[in-house]
Protein backbone atom coordinates (compact mmCIF):
# COMPACT_ATOMS: atom_id res chain seq x y z
CA UNK A 1 0.00 0.00 0.00
CA UNK A 2 2.81 2.38 0.95
CA UNK A 3 0.62 5.41 1.65
CA UNK A 4 1.10 8.15 4.22
CA UNK A 5 -1.82 9.47 6.24
CA UNK A 6 -2.20 12.46 3.90
CA UNK A 7 -2.09 10.25 0.82
CA UNK A 8 -4.78 7.96 2.27
CA UNK A 9 -7.15 10.84 3.00
CA UNK A 10 -6.63 12.24 -0.49
CA UNK A 11 -7.15 8.83 -2.11
CA UNK A 12 -10.36 8.32 -0.14
CA UNK A 13 -11.75 11.72 -1.16
CA UNK A 14 -10.78 11.13 -4.79
CA UNK A 15 -12.46 7.70 -4.84
CA UNK A 16 -9.17 5.97 -5.55
CA UNK A 17 -7.63 2.85 -4.03
CA UNK A 18 -4.13 4.14 -4.30
CA UNK A 19 -2.31 7.42 -4.96
CA UNK A 20 1.39 8.24 -5.11
CA UNK A 21 3.39 11.46 -4.85
CA UNK A 22 3.04 13.62 -7.96
CA UNK A 23 -0.39 12.21 -8.97
CA UNK A 24 -2.85 14.94 -9.91
CA UNK A 25 -6.24 14.15 -8.44
CA UNK A 26 -9.62 15.74 -7.86
CA UNK A 27 -10.88 15.35 -4.32
CA UNK A 28 -14.28 15.98 -2.77
CA UNK A 29 -14.23 18.62 -0.04
CA UNK A 30 -15.76 18.44 3.44
CA UNK A 31 -15.39 22.18 4.04
CA UNK A 32 -14.46 25.31 2.11
CA UNK A 33 -13.34 28.29 4.22
CA UNK A 34 -12.82 32.00 3.60
CA UNK A 35 -12.28 35.16 5.64
CA UNK A 36 -12.99 38.87 5.19
CA UNK A 37 -9.83 39.44 3.11
CA UNK A 38 -10.15 36.46 0.77
CA UNK A 39 -13.92 35.88 0.51
CA UNK A 40 -14.75 39.15 -1.31
CA UNK A 41 -12.28 38.27 -4.10
CA UNK A 42 -13.80 34.76 -4.25
CA UNK A 43 -17.32 36.21 -4.40
CA UNK A 44 -16.30 38.32 -7.42
CA UNK A 45 -14.81 35.28 -9.15
CA UNK A 46 -17.86 33.14 -8.33
CA UNK A 47 -20.25 35.70 -9.82
CA UNK A 48 -18.03 36.61 -12.77
CA UNK A 49 -18.01 32.96 -13.83
CA UNK A 50 -21.81 32.96 -13.76
CA UNK A 51 -22.41 30.67 -10.79
CA UNK A 52 -25.63 31.22 -8.87
CA UNK A 53 -25.59 28.29 -6.42
CA UNK A 54 -23.08 26.96 -3.92
CA UNK A 55 -22.49 23.18 -3.83
CA UNK A 56 -23.59 22.81 -0.20
CA UNK A 57 -24.52 25.65 2.15
CA UNK A 58 -23.52 23.53 5.17
CA UNK A 59 -20.00 22.85 3.89
CA UNK A 60 -18.85 26.45 3.55
CA UNK A 61 -17.54 28.60 6.39
CA UNK A 62 -17.16 32.37 6.10
CA UNK A 63 -15.36 33.90 9.06
CA UNK A 64 -14.92 37.68 9.30
CA UNK A 65 -11.84 37.75 11.51
CA UNK A 66 -9.00 39.72 9.94
CA UNK A 67 -10.01 43.40 10.05
CA UNK A 68 -12.97 43.06 12.38
CA UNK A 69 -14.47 44.84 14.21
CA UNK A 70 -13.95 46.81 10.99
CA UNK A 71 -10.95 49.09 11.15
CA UNK A 72 -12.01 51.43 8.35
CA UNK A 73 -14.59 52.07 5.63
CA UNK A 74 -12.89 49.88 3.04
CA UNK A 75 -12.73 46.87 5.35
CA UNK A 76 -16.40 47.44 6.23
CA UNK A 77 -17.18 47.28 2.50
CA UNK A 78 -15.32 43.98 2.21
CA UNK A 79 -17.24 42.53 5.16
CA UNK A 80 -20.49 43.75 3.65
CA UNK A 81 -19.76 41.90 0.40
CA UNK A 82 -18.94 38.67 2.27
CA UNK A 83 -21.97 39.07 4.57
CA UNK A 84 -24.41 39.64 1.70
CA UNK A 85 -23.06 36.58 -0.09
CA UNK A 86 -23.45 34.49 3.07
CA UNK A 87 -27.05 35.65 3.52
CA UNK A 88 -27.93 35.20 -0.18
CA UNK A 89 -26.67 31.61 -0.18
CA UNK A 90 -27.91 30.82 3.35
CA UNK A 91 -24.39 29.83 4.44
CA UNK A 92 -24.88 27.95 7.71
CA UNK A 93 -21.44 28.63 9.12
CA UNK A 94 -21.19 32.39 8.79
CA UNK A 95 -19.45 34.14 11.69
CA UNK A 96 -19.71 37.89 12.17
CA UNK A 97 -18.64 40.27 14.95
CA UNK A 98 -19.93 39.09 18.33
CA UNK A 99 -19.85 35.44 17.33
CA UNK A 100 -16.65 35.42 15.34
CA UNK A 101 -13.35 33.99 16.50
CA UNK A 102 -10.05 33.59 14.72
CA UNK A 103 -10.95 31.04 12.06
CA UNK A 104 -8.43 28.32 12.87
CA UNK A 105 -9.30 28.33 16.56
CA UNK A 106 -13.01 28.69 15.85
CA UNK A 107 -13.65 25.90 13.34
CA UNK A 108 -12.20 23.05 15.47
CA UNK A 109 -13.94 24.46 18.57
CA UNK A 110 -17.29 24.55 16.76
CA UNK A 111 -16.81 20.99 15.50
CA UNK A 112 -16.82 22.03 11.86
CA UNK A 113 -13.62 20.14 11.08
CA UNK A 114 -12.57 16.71 12.25
CA UNK A 115 -10.57 13.53 11.67
CA UNK A 116 -10.44 12.27 8.10
CA UNK A 117 -11.75 15.48 6.52
CA UNK A 118 -10.41 17.11 3.36
CA UNK A 119 -10.58 20.88 3.78
CA UNK A 120 -9.47 23.89 1.76
CA UNK A 121 -9.37 27.40 3.17
CA UNK A 122 -8.54 30.74 1.59
CA UNK A 123 -6.11 31.40 4.39
CA UNK A 124 -2.64 29.94 4.51
CA UNK A 125 -2.97 28.72 8.10
CA UNK A 126 -5.82 26.36 7.18
CA UNK A 127 -3.21 23.62 7.68
CA UNK A 128 -4.02 23.94 11.43
CA UNK A 129 -6.75 21.25 11.18
CA UNK A 130 -4.10 18.63 10.49
CA UNK A 131 -3.88 18.51 14.29
CA UNK A 132 -7.19 16.61 14.20
CA UNK A 133 -6.00 14.08 11.64
CA UNK A 134 -7.55 15.92 8.70
CA UNK A 135 -6.03 16.91 5.37
CA UNK A 136 -6.30 20.70 5.36
CA UNK A 137 -4.48 23.16 3.15
CA UNK A 138 -4.43 26.86 2.32
CA UNK A 139 -5.48 28.02 -1.13
CA UNK A 140 -6.39 31.37 -2.72
CA UNK A 141 -9.64 33.10 -3.53
CA UNK A 142 -10.18 31.56 -6.98
CA UNK A 143 -9.75 28.07 -5.52
CA UNK A 144 -12.25 29.04 -2.82
CA UNK A 145 -14.71 30.21 -5.48
CA UNK A 146 -14.26 26.99 -7.45
CA UNK A 147 -14.61 24.93 -4.26
CA UNK A 148 -17.84 26.73 -3.31
CA UNK A 149 -19.23 26.10 -6.78
CA UNK A 150 -18.21 22.49 -7.32
CA UNK A 151 -17.37 21.01 -3.94
CA UNK A 152 -14.11 19.58 -5.18
CA UNK A 153 -10.57 20.74 -5.78
CA UNK A 154 -7.50 19.51 -7.63
CA UNK A 155 -4.39 18.48 -5.74
CA UNK A 156 -0.95 17.22 -6.54
CA UNK A 157 -0.42 14.34 -4.11
CA UNK A 158 2.44 15.42 -1.87
CA UNK A 159 5.53 13.47 -0.92
CA UNK A 160 6.10 13.46 2.83
CA UNK A 161 8.58 14.27 5.55
CA UNK A 162 8.19 12.28 8.76
CA UNK A 163 8.77 14.17 11.99
CA UNK A 164 9.40 11.65 14.77
CA UNK A 165 8.73 13.08 18.23
CA UNK A 166 10.14 11.54 21.40
CA UNK A 167 10.61 12.65 25.00
CA UNK A 168 8.76 15.07 27.26
CA UNK A 169 8.73 18.86 27.54
CA UNK A 170 10.94 20.77 29.97
CA UNK A 171 9.42 23.79 31.78
CA UNK A 172 8.48 26.82 29.62
CA UNK A 173 8.58 24.72 26.43
CA UNK A 174 5.43 23.98 24.41
CA UNK A 175 4.13 23.25 20.91
CA UNK A 176 5.41 26.59 19.59
CA UNK A 177 8.98 25.62 20.41
CA UNK A 178 8.59 22.33 18.53
CA UNK A 179 7.49 24.01 15.33
CA UNK A 180 9.96 26.92 15.54
CA UNK A 181 12.76 24.41 16.15
CA UNK A 182 11.62 22.31 13.18
CA UNK A 183 11.45 25.32 10.84
CA UNK A 184 14.90 26.34 12.05
CA UNK A 185 16.16 22.87 11.14
CA UNK A 186 14.64 22.49 7.68
CA UNK A 187 14.16 26.12 6.57
CA UNK A 188 11.19 28.12 5.29
CA UNK A 189 11.06 26.00 2.13
CA UNK A 190 12.28 22.79 3.76
CA UNK A 191 8.92 21.08 3.23
CA UNK A 192 7.92 22.88 0.01
CA UNK A 193 4.96 21.11 -1.69
CA UNK A 194 5.23 18.26 0.87
CA UNK A 195 3.26 17.04 3.86
CA UNK A 196 4.77 17.12 7.33
CA UNK A 197 3.64 13.93 9.09
CA UNK A 198 4.12 14.09 12.85
CA UNK A 199 4.44 10.79 14.63
CA UNK A 200 6.23 8.98 17.45
CA UNK A 201 5.68 8.40 21.15
CA UNK A 202 6.13 12.13 21.82
CA UNK A 203 2.76 12.87 20.18
CA UNK A 204 0.94 11.54 23.26
CA UNK A 205 2.80 14.15 25.32
CA UNK A 206 1.28 16.98 23.27
CA UNK A 207 -2.02 18.59 24.22
CA UNK A 208 -4.49 19.30 21.40
CA UNK A 209 -3.57 22.98 21.68
CA UNK A 210 0.11 22.08 21.21
CA UNK A 211 -0.83 20.09 18.11
CA UNK A 212 -2.91 22.95 16.69
CA UNK A 213 0.05 25.30 17.16
CA UNK A 214 2.45 22.89 15.45
CA UNK A 215 0.18 22.06 12.49
CA UNK A 216 -0.68 25.76 12.15
CA UNK A 217 2.89 26.71 11.25
CA UNK A 218 3.54 23.83 8.81
CA UNK A 219 3.04 26.44 6.06
CA UNK A 220 5.98 28.38 7.51
CA UNK A 221 8.20 25.49 6.35
CA UNK A 222 6.52 25.67 2.93
CA UNK A 223 4.47 22.52 3.59
CA UNK A 224 1.21 21.75 1.85
CA UNK A 225 -0.12 20.40 5.14
CA UNK A 226 0.92 19.14 8.53
CA UNK A 227 -0.85 16.17 10.07
CA UNK A 228 -1.06 14.26 13.36
CA UNK A 229 -2.30 10.74 14.01
CA UNK A 230 -5.68 10.42 15.72
CA UNK A 231 -5.39 9.24 19.32
CA UNK A 232 -7.44 9.31 22.54
CA UNK A 233 -6.82 13.03 23.01
CA UNK A 234 -8.13 13.75 19.51
CA UNK A 235 -11.24 11.64 20.04
CA UNK A 236 -11.86 13.26 23.44
CA UNK A 237 -11.57 16.71 21.81
CA UNK A 238 -14.01 15.99 18.97
CA UNK A 239 -16.44 13.88 21.02
CA UNK A 240 -19.02 16.55 21.86
CA UNK A 241 -18.14 18.88 18.99
CA UNK A 242 -17.72 17.19 15.62
CA UNK A 243 -21.04 16.50 13.94
CA UNK A 244 -19.93 14.25 11.11
CA UNK A 245 -18.62 10.70 11.29
CA UNK A 246 -15.05 10.42 12.58
CA UNK A 247 -12.84 8.71 10.00
CA UNK A 248 -9.47 7.54 11.22
CA UNK A 249 -6.70 7.09 8.68
CA UNK A 250 -3.34 5.62 9.62
CA UNK A 251 -0.13 5.66 7.65
CA UNK A 252 0.90 2.28 6.25
CA UNK A 253 3.83 0.56 7.94
CA UNK A 254 5.74 0.75 4.67
CA UNK A 255 4.68 4.31 3.77
CA UNK A 256 7.48 6.19 2.05
CA UNK A 257 9.00 9.38 3.41
CA UNK A 258 11.54 11.54 1.62
CA UNK A 259 13.28 12.17 4.91
CA UNK A 260 12.85 11.71 8.64
CA UNK A 261 13.45 14.48 11.18
CA UNK A 262 13.98 13.42 14.81
CA UNK A 263 12.94 15.82 17.56
CA UNK A 264 13.47 14.91 21.21
CA UNK A 265 11.06 17.09 23.18
CA UNK A 266 13.24 16.69 26.31
CA UNK A 267 16.10 18.49 24.57
CA UNK A 268 14.06 21.47 23.35
CA UNK A 269 14.67 24.83 24.97
CA UNK A 270 12.42 27.88 24.84
CA UNK A 271 12.94 29.08 21.27
CA UNK A 272 12.38 32.32 19.36
CA UNK A 273 12.51 33.27 15.68
CA UNK A 274 14.33 36.52 15.09
CA UNK A 275 13.45 38.85 12.19
CA UNK A 276 12.80 38.43 9.34
CA UNK A 277 12.17 34.72 8.75
CA UNK A 278 10.54 32.07 10.97
CA UNK A 279 13.59 29.87 10.26
CA UNK A 280 15.90 32.37 11.98
CA UNK A 281 15.67 30.53 15.29
CA UNK A 282 17.68 30.98 18.48
CA UNK A 283 17.16 29.67 21.98
CA UNK A 284 15.88 32.31 24.41
CA UNK A 285 19.19 31.96 26.28
CA UNK A 286 21.00 33.30 23.23
CA UNK A 287 18.91 36.48 22.94
CA UNK A 288 18.13 37.33 26.56
CA UNK A 289 18.08 41.04 27.25
CA UNK A 290 16.83 42.06 23.79
CA UNK A 291 14.72 45.21 24.19
CA UNK A 292 11.02 45.06 23.27
CA UNK A 293 8.32 47.70 22.89
CA UNK A 294 5.26 45.52 22.39
CA UNK A 295 3.96 42.07 23.24
CA UNK A 296 1.15 40.32 21.35
CA UNK A 297 -0.33 37.15 22.83
CA UNK A 298 -3.01 35.59 20.63
CA UNK A 299 -3.52 34.63 16.95
CA UNK A 300 -4.47 31.39 15.20
CA UNK A 301 -1.14 30.02 16.39
CA UNK A 302 -1.32 30.73 20.14
CA UNK A 303 -4.66 32.25 21.13
CA UNK A 304 -6.25 29.12 22.61
CA UNK A 305 -7.24 28.64 26.24
CA UNK A 306 -4.04 26.87 27.28
CA UNK A 307 -2.03 29.71 25.70
CA UNK A 308 -4.09 32.29 27.59
CA UNK A 309 -3.66 30.28 30.82
CA UNK A 310 0.11 30.05 30.23
CA UNK A 311 0.31 33.82 29.77
CA UNK A 312 -1.84 34.42 32.86
CA UNK A 313 0.30 32.10 34.99
CA UNK A 314 3.21 34.46 34.35
CA UNK A 315 1.38 37.82 34.41
CA UNK A 316 -0.84 37.21 37.47
CA UNK A 317 0.33 39.38 40.34
CA UNK A 318 2.97 41.08 38.20
CA UNK A 319 3.08 44.32 36.18
CA UNK A 320 3.91 44.88 32.52
CA UNK A 321 7.09 46.99 32.21
CA UNK A 322 6.41 50.73 31.89
CA UNK A 323 7.71 51.03 28.35
CA UNK A 324 5.84 47.96 27.02
CA UNK A 325 2.35 47.63 25.50
CA UNK A 326 1.04 44.12 26.10
CA UNK A 327 -1.95 43.11 23.95
CA UNK A 328 -3.82 39.90 24.75
CA UNK A 329 -6.32 38.48 22.26
CA UNK A 330 -8.24 35.31 23.18
CA UNK A 331 -8.92 33.67 19.82
CA UNK A 332 -12.67 32.95 20.16
CA UNK A 333 -15.65 34.06 22.20
CA UNK A 334 -15.69 30.69 23.99
CA UNK A 335 -12.03 31.11 24.97
CA UNK A 336 -12.70 34.74 25.98
CA UNK A 337 -15.60 33.64 28.19
CA UNK A 338 -13.61 30.78 29.70
CA UNK A 339 -10.74 33.18 30.48
CA UNK A 340 -13.24 35.56 32.04
CA UNK A 341 -14.73 32.83 34.23
CA UNK A 342 -11.29 31.67 35.35
CA UNK A 343 -10.33 35.22 36.35
CA UNK A 344 -7.57 35.40 33.75
CA UNK A 345 -8.81 38.59 32.13
CA UNK A 346 -8.80 40.31 35.51
CA UNK A 347 -5.22 39.20 36.06
CA UNK A 348 -4.25 40.66 32.67
CA UNK A 349 -5.98 43.96 33.33
CA UNK A 350 -4.39 44.22 36.78
CA UNK A 351 -1.00 43.59 35.17
CA UNK A 352 -1.60 46.48 32.76
CA UNK A 353 -2.44 44.55 29.59
CA UNK A 354 -4.90 45.44 26.88
CA UNK A 355 -7.44 42.64 26.34
CA UNK A 356 -9.21 42.53 22.98
CA UNK A 357 -12.19 40.86 21.37
CA UNK A 358 -11.08 38.10 18.94
CA UNK A 359 -9.34 39.42 15.81
CA UNK A 360 -6.32 38.60 13.64
CA UNK A 361 -5.55 42.37 13.81
CA UNK A 362 -1.92 42.87 14.83
CA UNK A 363 -0.55 39.56 13.51
CA UNK A 364 -0.68 40.85 9.95
CA UNK A 365 -0.20 44.53 10.77
CA UNK A 366 -3.89 45.13 10.13
CA UNK A 367 -5.01 46.97 13.26
CA UNK A 368 -5.01 46.71 17.09
CA UNK A 369 -1.27 47.01 17.56
CA UNK A 370 0.50 48.26 14.42
CA UNK A 371 4.11 49.37 15.05
CA UNK A 372 6.03 52.42 13.81
CA UNK A 373 9.70 52.81 12.83
CA UNK A 374 12.29 50.79 14.75
CA UNK A 375 9.86 49.23 17.23
CA UNK A 376 10.15 45.60 18.21
CA UNK A 377 7.49 43.15 19.34
CA UNK A 378 7.72 39.70 20.81
CA UNK A 379 4.60 37.90 19.60
CA UNK A 380 3.02 34.47 19.79
CA UNK A 381 2.02 34.88 16.14
CA UNK A 382 3.41 33.01 13.15
CA UNK A 383 5.28 35.38 10.82
CA UNK A 384 8.09 37.88 11.27
CA UNK A 385 8.56 39.05 7.68
CA UNK A 386 9.63 42.62 6.86
CA UNK A 387 6.78 44.98 7.77
CA UNK A 388 4.56 42.17 9.04
CA UNK A 389 3.31 44.11 12.08
CA UNK A 390 3.68 47.61 10.70
CA UNK A 391 6.58 49.78 9.51
CA UNK A 392 9.25 48.05 7.41
CA UNK A 393 11.87 48.87 10.06
CA UNK A 394 9.77 47.37 12.87
CA UNK A 395 10.62 43.86 14.00
CA UNK A 396 8.71 40.81 15.20
CA UNK A 397 10.25 38.06 17.34
CA UNK A 398 8.17 34.87 17.47
CA UNK A 399 7.84 33.01 20.77
CA UNK A 400 5.55 30.90 22.95
CA UNK A 401 3.04 32.56 25.34
CA UNK A 402 5.09 32.06 28.54
CA UNK A 403 8.17 33.66 27.01
CA UNK A 404 6.12 36.53 25.56
CA UNK A 405 4.40 37.13 28.92
CA UNK A 406 7.66 37.05 30.88
CA UNK A 407 9.25 39.44 28.39
CA UNK A 408 6.30 41.82 28.85
CA UNK A 409 7.07 42.01 32.58
CA UNK A 410 10.80 42.50 32.22
CA UNK A 411 10.62 44.71 29.12
CA UNK A 412 13.22 42.55 27.45
CA UNK A 413 13.33 38.97 26.21
CA UNK A 414 13.56 36.47 29.07
CA UNK A 415 11.93 33.34 30.53
CA UNK A 416 9.60 33.25 33.57
CA UNK A 417 12.56 31.88 35.56
CA UNK A 418 14.27 35.25 35.11
CA UNK A 419 11.49 37.19 36.85
Amino acid at each position, binding site marked *: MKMTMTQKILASHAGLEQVKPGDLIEAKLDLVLGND*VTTPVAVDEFRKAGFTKVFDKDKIAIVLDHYTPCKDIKSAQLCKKAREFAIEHKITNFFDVGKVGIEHALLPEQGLVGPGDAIIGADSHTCTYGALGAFATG*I*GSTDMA*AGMAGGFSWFKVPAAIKVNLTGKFQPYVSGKDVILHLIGLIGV*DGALYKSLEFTGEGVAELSMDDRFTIANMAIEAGAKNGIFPVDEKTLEYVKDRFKREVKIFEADEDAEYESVVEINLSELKPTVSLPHLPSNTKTVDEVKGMHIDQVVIGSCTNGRISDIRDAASVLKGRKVADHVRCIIIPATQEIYKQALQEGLLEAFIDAGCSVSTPTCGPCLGGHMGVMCENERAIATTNRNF*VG*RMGHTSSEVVLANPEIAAASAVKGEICTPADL
Partner: protein
Amino acid sequence: MVTGKVYKFQDNVDTDVIIPARYLNNTDPAELAKHCMEDIDDSFASKVQPGDIMVAGANFGCGSSREHAPISIRACGVSCVIAESFARIFYRNSLNIGFPILECPEAAKNINEGDQVSVDFKKGLIIDETTGQTFQAVPFPAFIENIINCGGLMEYIKSKQ
Protein backbone atom coordinates in the same frame (compact mmCIF):
# COMPACT_ATOMS: atom_id res chain seq x y z
CA MET B 1 5.82 35.54 -26.35
CA VAL B 2 6.73 38.45 -24.07
CA THR B 3 9.83 40.64 -23.85
CA GLY B 4 10.89 42.96 -21.06
CA LYS B 5 13.51 44.29 -18.73
CA VAL B 6 14.40 42.19 -15.68
CA TYR B 7 13.94 43.17 -12.07
CA LYS B 8 15.76 40.73 -9.82
CA PHE B 9 14.78 39.62 -6.32
CA GLN B 10 16.33 37.34 -3.73
CA ASP B 11 15.12 34.12 -2.08
CA ASN B 12 11.96 33.93 0.05
CA VAL B 13 10.15 37.00 -1.29
CA ASP B 14 7.00 36.81 0.85
CA THR B 15 3.47 37.96 0.12
CA ASP B 16 3.71 40.60 2.87
CA VAL B 17 6.34 42.49 0.87
CA ILE B 18 4.64 41.79 -2.47
CA ILE B 19 1.47 43.46 -1.22
CA PRO B 20 1.48 44.58 2.45
CA ALA B 21 -1.61 43.72 4.49
CA ARG B 22 -2.33 47.41 5.09
CA TYR B 23 -3.60 47.50 1.49
CA LEU B 24 -5.69 44.34 1.68
CA ASN B 25 -8.78 46.33 2.57
CA ASN B 26 -8.97 46.81 -1.19
CA THR B 27 -9.62 44.40 -4.04
CA ASP B 28 -9.19 46.78 -7.00
CA PRO B 29 -6.22 45.51 -9.08
CA ALA B 30 -5.22 49.04 -10.20
CA GLU B 31 -5.11 50.22 -6.59
CA LEU B 32 -3.17 47.12 -5.46
CA ALA B 33 -0.69 47.67 -8.33
CA LYS B 34 0.33 51.04 -6.89
CA HIS B 35 1.75 49.29 -3.82
CA CYS B 36 3.26 46.19 -5.44
CA MET B 37 6.65 45.28 -3.86
CA GLU B 38 6.47 48.50 -1.82
CA ASP B 39 8.10 47.08 1.31
CA ILE B 40 11.07 45.66 -0.59
CA ASP B 41 11.50 48.43 -3.21
CA ASP B 42 9.21 51.42 -2.83
CA SER B 43 10.04 52.71 -6.33
CA PHE B 44 9.15 49.43 -8.08
CA ALA B 45 5.53 50.23 -8.93
CA SER B 46 6.45 53.60 -10.46
CA LYS B 47 9.40 52.40 -12.56
CA VAL B 48 8.13 49.03 -13.83
CA GLN B 49 7.01 49.11 -17.49
CA PRO B 50 4.40 46.92 -19.21
CA GLY B 51 6.02 43.64 -20.22
CA ASP B 52 8.83 43.74 -17.65
CA ILE B 53 9.82 40.48 -16.02
CA MET B 54 10.56 39.55 -12.42
CA VAL B 55 13.31 37.01 -11.77
CA ALA B 56 13.69 35.66 -8.24
CA GLY B 57 15.36 33.02 -6.12
CA ALA B 58 13.79 30.15 -4.21
CA ASN B 59 10.36 30.04 -2.53
CA PHE B 60 8.93 33.14 -4.26
CA GLY B 61 5.54 34.15 -2.84
CA CYS B 62 5.86 32.40 0.51
CA GLY B 63 3.52 33.38 3.33
CA SER B 64 -0.15 34.16 3.10
CA SER B 65 -2.76 32.89 0.68
CA ARG B 66 -3.65 36.40 -0.55
CA GLU B 67 -4.44 36.22 -4.25
CA HIS B 68 -3.89 39.97 -4.13
CA ALA B 69 -0.16 39.15 -4.53
CA PRO B 70 -0.20 37.79 -8.11
CA ILE B 71 -3.08 40.18 -8.90
CA SER B 72 -0.94 43.20 -7.93
CA ILE B 73 2.10 41.93 -9.84
CA ARG B 74 0.07 41.42 -12.99
CA ALA B 75 -1.77 44.73 -12.61
CA CYS B 76 1.43 46.76 -12.46
CA GLY B 77 2.37 45.45 -15.89
CA VAL B 78 4.72 42.56 -15.12
CA SER B 79 4.35 39.95 -17.86
CA CYS B 80 5.91 36.98 -16.13
CA VAL B 81 7.70 35.80 -12.99
CA ILE B 82 10.62 33.40 -13.32
CA ALA B 83 11.94 31.85 -10.12
CA GLU B 84 14.11 29.07 -8.82
CA SER B 85 10.98 27.80 -7.03
CA PHE B 86 7.57 29.10 -5.94
CA ALA B 87 5.66 28.75 -2.69
CA ARG B 88 2.76 26.44 -3.47
CA ILE B 89 -0.21 28.73 -2.76
CA PHE B 90 1.33 31.55 -4.86
CA TYR B 91 1.97 29.02 -7.64
CA ARG B 92 -1.66 27.84 -7.57
CA ASN B 93 -3.08 31.34 -7.34
CA SER B 94 -1.07 32.52 -10.34
CA LEU B 95 -2.21 29.63 -12.54
CA ASN B 96 -5.79 30.00 -11.35
CA ILE B 97 -5.94 33.64 -12.45
CA GLY B 98 -4.08 32.90 -15.68
CA PHE B 99 -0.89 34.74 -14.76
CA PRO B 100 2.19 33.06 -16.28
CA ILE B 101 4.96 31.97 -13.94
CA LEU B 102 7.89 29.75 -14.78
CA GLU B 103 10.08 27.61 -12.55
CA CYS B 104 13.64 27.62 -13.88
CA PRO B 105 16.57 27.47 -11.43
CA GLU B 106 19.18 27.99 -14.16
CA ALA B 107 17.50 31.14 -15.49
CA ALA B 108 16.99 32.45 -11.96
CA LYS B 109 20.70 32.05 -11.24
CA ASN B 110 22.14 33.40 -14.48
CA ILE B 111 19.88 36.25 -15.58
CA ASN B 112 21.04 39.66 -14.29
CA GLU B 113 19.16 42.72 -13.14
CA GLY B 114 18.37 44.95 -16.12
CA ASP B 115 18.85 42.23 -18.78
CA GLN B 116 16.41 42.17 -21.68
CA VAL B 117 14.61 38.81 -21.60
CA SER B 118 12.09 37.10 -23.91
CA VAL B 119 9.84 34.23 -22.90
CA ASP B 120 8.14 31.79 -25.25
CA PHE B 121 5.43 30.26 -23.04
CA LYS B 122 4.44 27.54 -25.50
CA LYS B 123 7.95 26.11 -25.55
CA GLY B 124 8.82 27.17 -22.00
CA LEU B 125 11.87 28.84 -23.50
CA ILE B 126 13.57 31.76 -21.74
CA ILE B 127 16.02 33.83 -23.80
CA ASP B 128 18.36 36.38 -22.21
CA GLU B 129 18.79 38.79 -25.15
CA THR B 130 21.52 40.69 -23.29
CA THR B 131 23.82 37.72 -22.70
CA GLY B 132 22.56 35.40 -25.45
CA GLN B 133 21.89 32.56 -22.98
CA THR B 134 18.79 30.39 -23.31
CA PHE B 135 17.06 28.37 -20.60
CA GLN B 136 14.35 25.70 -20.59
CA ALA B 137 11.68 26.09 -17.91
CA VAL B 138 10.06 23.16 -16.11
CA PRO B 139 6.99 22.32 -18.26
CA PHE B 140 3.46 22.34 -16.80
CA PRO B 141 1.84 18.92 -16.26
CA ALA B 142 -0.87 18.16 -18.86
CA PHE B 143 -3.62 18.52 -16.23
CA ILE B 144 -2.57 22.10 -15.45
CA GLU B 145 -2.09 22.85 -19.14
CA ASN B 146 -5.75 21.85 -19.51
CA ILE B 147 -6.84 24.35 -16.83
CA ILE B 148 -4.85 27.06 -18.60
CA ASN B 149 -6.35 26.09 -21.96
CA CYS B 150 -9.86 26.30 -20.49
CA GLY B 151 -9.08 29.92 -19.60
CA GLY B 152 -8.50 29.46 -15.89
CA LEU B 153 -9.89 27.44 -13.02
CA MET B 154 -13.43 28.84 -12.99
CA GLU B 155 -13.94 28.02 -16.67
CA TYR B 156 -12.52 24.56 -16.04
CA ILE B 157 -14.99 23.92 -13.20
CA LYS B 158 -17.85 25.13 -15.45
CA SER B 159 -16.79 22.77 -18.21
CA LYS B 160 -17.07 19.88 -15.72
CA GLN B 161 -20.66 20.64 -14.69
